[in-house]
């Protein structure tokens, strides 16, 4: 090899900011090649994919509609992952939030009070929390691995939703179609701009980011989570309650994902149907790692991922490319982003004849 990787003495601050830029550049170049090889004008196509979705306020509000649930789920997942709790269950918690909140909204269909919405939101969050609590209970009481339980609980949640909309929550005037009645206006989240769909759920999401960010950087709890995450045995030596922390991060995540779910059904969807969860809980997992487990990074990563979904719709409309292209593009972008992060801790150097080294002190392990 002519080039090799060398560990930097300390992580490069500059690269922390430059590597995503580099990744985006590489994606653009590769994307241009892909588009050109499919017989499309590369620059115009890139414009359609990345910029056209955001060229007006409407585009930005639609981005916000996708970012809000992604952010809420991702912030909760970040806490879990930092504490080494591998919660894959934001999707199920999201569904339960929507289902529970939707259930209450339907029960209160005739109540004309401004208390309906807060009650619905609260109940939805609690349902998400309860779903996460199941995983926490299984983990702390039976040592049931949360990766397994949360994946299974996701499927169970989905069938619960199917059960609800095919059964007890079906719109009685809906010709037996599997969806609920539309919620009353009192159960709907207010929109921010008239004529656009973006609701105040984006404010919930930003509020959650702000609170968790502050918390992680200042409060004792943030410290605890970080310590536990890095070294569980150290944490228990320091007297932190391992199990309490598992409960805490899962409950927070469940409540946030539940809030995302209930905001989705009382926002852009406006009713219960079998399709309320388009996979935000899974997408949020990628976002957490793309955002390097940092609230700021997560905000940017969620916007980027949301943009690729919208861009994918645009290239289908304008360039009549199949949806599979979106998957290729997203995959490529993610690969580059992940690969370029290497440059934060390593640099590429010319491979010169090796000076003799003692092996032990040269061994270095990169941390995730």
């Amino acid at each position: 090899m002519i080039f090799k990787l060398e560990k930097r003495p300390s992580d490069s601050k500059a690269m922390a900011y430059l590597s995503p830029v580099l990744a985006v550049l590489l994606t653009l170049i590769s994307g241009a090649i892909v588009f050109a090889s499919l017989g499309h004008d590369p620059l115009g196509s890139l414009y359609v994919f990345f910029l056209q979705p955001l060229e007006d306020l409407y585009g930005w509000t639609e981005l916000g509609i996708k970012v809000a649930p992604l952010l809420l789920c991702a912030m909760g997942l970040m806490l879990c992952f930092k504490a080494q709790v591998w919660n894959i269950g934001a999707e199920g918690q999201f569904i339960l939030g929507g289902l529970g909140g939707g259930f209450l909204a339907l029960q209160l269909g005739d109540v004309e009070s401004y208390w309906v919405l807060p009650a619905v939101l609260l109940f939805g969050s609690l349902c998400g929390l309860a779903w996460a609590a199941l995983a926490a209970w299984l983990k702390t009481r039976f040592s049931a691995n949360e990766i397994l339980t949360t994946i299974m609980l996701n499927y169970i949640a989905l069938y619960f939703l199917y059960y609800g909309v095919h059964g007890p929550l079906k719109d009685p005037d809906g010709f037996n179609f599997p969806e609920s009645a539309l919620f009353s206006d009192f159960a709907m989240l207010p929109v921010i701009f008239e004529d656009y769909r973006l609701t105040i759920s984006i404010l919930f999401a930003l509020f959650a980011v702000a609170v968790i960010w502050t918390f992680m950087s200042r409060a004792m709890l943030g410290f605890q989570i970080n310590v536990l995450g890095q070294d569980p045995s150290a944490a228990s030596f320091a007297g932190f309650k391992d199990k309490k922390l598992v409960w805490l991060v899962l409950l927070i995540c469940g409540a946030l994902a539940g809030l995302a779910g209930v905001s989705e059904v009382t926002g852009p969807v406006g009713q219960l149907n079998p399709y309320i969860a388009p996979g935000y809980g899974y997408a949020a997992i990628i976002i957490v790692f793309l955002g390097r487990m940092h609230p700021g990074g997560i905000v940017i990563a969620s916007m980027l991922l949301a943009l690729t979904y919208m861009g994918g719709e645009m290239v289908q409309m304008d360039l009549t490319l199949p949806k599979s292209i979106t998957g290729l593009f997203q995959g490529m972008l993610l690969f580059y982003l992940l690969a370029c992060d290497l440059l934060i801790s390593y640099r590429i150097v010319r491979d010169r004849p090796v000076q003799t080294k003692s092996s032990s002190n040269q061994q270095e392990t990169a941390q995730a």
Partner: protein
Amino acid sequence: MKLKTISKVLATAALAGGMSVAQAEDPINIGFVYVGPTGDAGWTYAHDEARKYVEEQLGDKVKTTYVESVPEGADGERVIRQLASKGNDLIFTTSFGYMNPTLKVAKKFPKVAFEHASGYKRADNMGTYFTRAYQGRYLTGLIAGKMTESNVLGYVASFPIPEVIRGINAFTKGAKEVNPDVQVKVVWASTWYDPAKEREAAETLILQGADVLTQHTDSAAVIQAAEAKGKYAIGYHSDMSEYGEKAHLTAAIHNWGPLYLKKAQQVLDGTWKAEDLWPGIAEGTTDLAPLNEAIPADVVALVEEKKAALKAGEMRVFDGPVINQAGEEVVPAGSTMDDGALLGFGFYIEGVEGKLPQS
């Protein structure tokens, strides 16, 4: 060249909302919103075939666009709205879940014509359409009733929604007419699409004695299962004989092409208006795939006769007496089920085994 197209689209987008229905000499733009991938070999595939048909037939006069695998949650509304604001004159939303989103967008774009499949809400610029696929089902039921030796027919179903229940009942009605001893067993796979699971559902039915199978899911796995076990099967959505030459008796197929062509032509001519269309065998939107040679000539003749009668409107599938599982006459002899009742079909007729799941 392509940049030009894009800027043209952008320019049209800027004019959106204030657009008038296209003049006859201008090409019109038609947008399609699909719930699955065009490669699902089932529901969406049939719609996309029709889109291509419209392009073939009208050539330069139309430009079509589609967006596939659009989730029926919050994303649907954005895609529909984008299609409208990008200057599409006619937009087909091809799944039930798009009903409310289509309605919301239709209100914002009064000059754009919307067509929603399978729903019941309409507006001045939003029509609905569906296909009387149950007529095709009925005809396949006649064949199944004649071909079965065990008198047990198997039906792999997805979810208990009216469209599926209507199909089960129509199939049963046909089978019962020619074979009063026949029983239809239903297994709900709780998925639209999982080939392996569909195959297992089919084999479960075979195990319980079914010797003619059909399915209301998206893949051809049921046909394959029947072929492997030496049983008969009836396809759905499209001709599935490719997957089991011996087993495949026929299929109840969709053919949306003529309907889409008609709607496109109306927009071209400026005569489009919102209506509730429910075409069927007479218009060709539902039909049978070529019949297997194993079907005896008298059965073929019977099918042709009934098909002609349906086409001519001399009979309807759910002409009375329609008897439910409890033996009550829901529709008395001499009258027929109206479209409203058909749309919300929520019970099994006599001949279907088991209880209709209420959830």
